[in-house]
């Protein structure tokens, strides 16, 4: 054994460079942000979400067309259609005189979107005629199309069609009627290429030309622009999509904000108090979960009622909040129960921390990450529910546009003008996709236990 003397020891000099932290310390949120930035999919989704918010909030300031305004010259126009229209004189009724004195089923004058004038020779054995219009040739099945005129007098051999004409090709059939007024299989058909026209007064009304403009009949002008086309009532798709975005996103983001907040309060109270109260509160949450969700959404919506002239956004918000809070409440309760047992909470309690301090300083901030992830995942769910309800006609009331109700209107004309369905559907899908991917990224960044699970 060697003797150790005090003189063998000497005080070590304080060296700050050894214990110094070479990197700046990272808070939980800074760490999460770095992780999120490394996730390309999440960042792209974040950009998408920001772009959508710009589209929703700033879009209507840039594209100022009224979403309710009908452009009757351009109904169900897909995007990129030719907008030029020839200016013609105002409509004057026709007396049925054919200046060229032709024969057979024929078109008099140039067929325009203003009027198509048909003249025919009386068919053999006819007791009058019925005029049909179709988008396709008649064919073997005698598919004449929609009836546009009917005459029980063989002397009348002309018809003026002014019904909802669009530029393009129509097939008109003049069908002989039997003595009892039923349709026979004797018919004449004529193919018509309709040209788009407008009148000076209409153009002035729509603000396409100045009042003092020197445009003449026969000149051509451009009708108002619709970058994404128009819907079945001639309303501008782009401005409707923007207005619809406001409705869909205010429900899709607003409702989750409310019910996640309510869930946090409910769950943390239950988890913190514990015991009988906790059991009772969670049993109540279980009951709400057991309600058949979509049926009760519809039920609550009709129970709250939509008055005349109301958009129906509020009833849907309330119904969503009433039905969707328990998931968050359960989650937050579980978190609180875990955190309550943590050593740092007990230490804080030992140091004399009050209940308020414990809740707001330790408990809630530590559940915030989980809550944020839940919020991000609840948003696409709420958007889906809104779209779904509006689609079956139980959502926002017309004429208020929402992406769901626009899809509902678009699906009826899916075969002829698919753009009316595709645009709102794409917007719903992109929004839901962006929030889902962002939620995945946030979960990976914020929740250490869920990390690397996939």
């Amino acid at each position, binding site marked *: 054994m060697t003797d150790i003397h005090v003189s063998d020891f000497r005080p070590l000099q304080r060296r700050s460079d050894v214990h110094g932290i070479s990197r700046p310390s990272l808070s939980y949120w800074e760490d999460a942000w770095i992780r999120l930035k490394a996730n390309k999919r999440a960042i792209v989704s974040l950009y998408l979400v920001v772009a959508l918010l710009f589209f929703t909030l700033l879009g209507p300031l840039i594209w100022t067309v009224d979403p309710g305004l009908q452009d009757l010259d351009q109904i169900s126009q897909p995007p990129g259609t030719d907008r030029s229209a020839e200016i013609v004189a105002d409509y004057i009724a026709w007396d049925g005189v054919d200046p060229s004195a032709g024969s057979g089923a024929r078109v008099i004058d140039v067929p325009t979107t203003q009027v198509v004038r048909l003249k025919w020779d009386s068919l053999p054995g006819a007791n009058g005629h019925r005029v049909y219009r179709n988008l396709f040739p008649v064919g073997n099945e005698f598919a004449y199309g929609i009836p546009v005129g009917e005459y029980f007098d063989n002397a009348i051999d002309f018809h003026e069609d002014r019904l909802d004409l669009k530029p393009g090709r129509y097939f008109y059939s003049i069908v002989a009627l039997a003595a009892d007024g039923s349709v026979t299989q004797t018919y004449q058909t004529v193919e018509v290429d309709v040209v788009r026209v407008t009148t000076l007064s209409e153009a002035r009304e729509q603000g396409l030309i100045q009042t003092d403009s020197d445009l003449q009949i026969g000149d051509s002008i451009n009708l108002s622009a619709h970058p994404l086309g128009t819907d079945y009532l001639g309303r501008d798709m782009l401005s409707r999509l923007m207005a619809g975005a406001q409705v869909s996103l205010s429900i899709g983001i607003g409702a989750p904000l409310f019910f996640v907040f309510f869930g946090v309060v409910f769950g943390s109270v239950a988890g913190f108090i514990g015991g009988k109260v906790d059991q009772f509160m969670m049993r109540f949450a279980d009951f709400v979960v057991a309600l*058949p969700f979509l049926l*009760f959404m519809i039920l609550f919506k009709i*129970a709250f009622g939509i008055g005349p002239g109301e958009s129906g956004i509020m009833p849907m918000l309330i119904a969503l909040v009433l039905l969707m809070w328990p998931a968050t409440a359960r989650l937050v309760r579980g978190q609180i129960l875990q955190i309550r047992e943590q050593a740092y909470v007990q230490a804080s309690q030992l140091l004399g921390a009050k209940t308020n301090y414990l809740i707001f300083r330790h408990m809630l901030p530590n559940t915030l990450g989980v809550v944020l992830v839940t919020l991000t995942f609840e948003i696409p769910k709420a958007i889906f529910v809104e779209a779904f309800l509006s689609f*079956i*006609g139980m959502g926002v009331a017309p004429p208020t546009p929402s992406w769901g109700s626009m899809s*509902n209107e678009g699906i009826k004309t899916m075969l002829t003008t698919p753009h009316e369905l595709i645009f709102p559907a794409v917007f719903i899908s992109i929004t839901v996709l962006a929030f889902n991917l962002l939620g995945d990224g946030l979960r990976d960044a914020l929740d250490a236990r869920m990390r690397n699970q996939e």
Partner: protein
Amino acid sequence: MGWYIFKRLIQGIITVWFIATATFFAMHSVPGDPLLNDRAVTPAIRANLEAKYGLDQPLLTQYVIYLGNLSRGDFGISFTQENRQVNDIIREHFPVSAILGILAVLFAALGGVLWGSLTALYRNRLPDYIIMFLVILGISVPSFVVAALSQYSLVTLNNAVGQTLLPVAGWGTILHMLVPAMVLGLSTMAYLTRLMRSSMLEVINSDFVRTAKSKGLPPARIFTRHQVRNAILPVITVLGPQIAVITTGGFVVEIVFAIPGLGRFFVEAVQQLDYTVIMGTTVFYGAFLVFMVIVVDVLYGFIDPRVRLK
């Protein structure tokens, strides 16, 4: 075990009572008059109608009568379809929804297990990326868009072939059921694929798989006997609630494909404000959901001995 089942059943009955009560009071706070018809009704007829539907009683008495009828399984008479029992309506339309739902779940489960295990086996390679992209797409595209698009492609397909290969809408033969069931099961399939993938990834790296490999078992046998069998458990767990959710959530598919199921009938009843049908359907579906979950929980206890029934 018997005590557990009994306890769950009692809980289920209380839950159904809660659903029935919520439905009753929600329906009775609907603004408007249930007997308001297009035809003008004289006070005498009106009084008779009110007596027939029990609307002349005070609300609490109505509630007690309603609960009494429910406990006998009687949902009452339809408001808009004269003399038609709600029970008959459910008996007629629910089997359609149920068949559609079961087919959809079968489709979703088979697809989910298959795609999920494939993506796990090909992790971070091309098949994984393609399938997972499709899965994300399946989760993000609303069901009515999928339904509309599939109907559109059916029309195109039938036109191209020149005859009706698969009917575009309607109900009757197995051919009518195929496409709607696929559309209905699609989002569940996407969900199950993700679940199966993560559970499969866990199993692949486990010791017993390594043992199986090292004792020289052929990969196909390892795949079927060791990997899928163990990875499939979480999928089975969520399958029960999913059957109920799908069966009760088929509105859109039933509407788009013109299928005479209970979901479509419910939407029609809501549009016509047919009070008894709405209440009956809601309570029936609620009870169906609740007891499906109980049945699955009990069955699961038999299948997996590791699950301890408390």
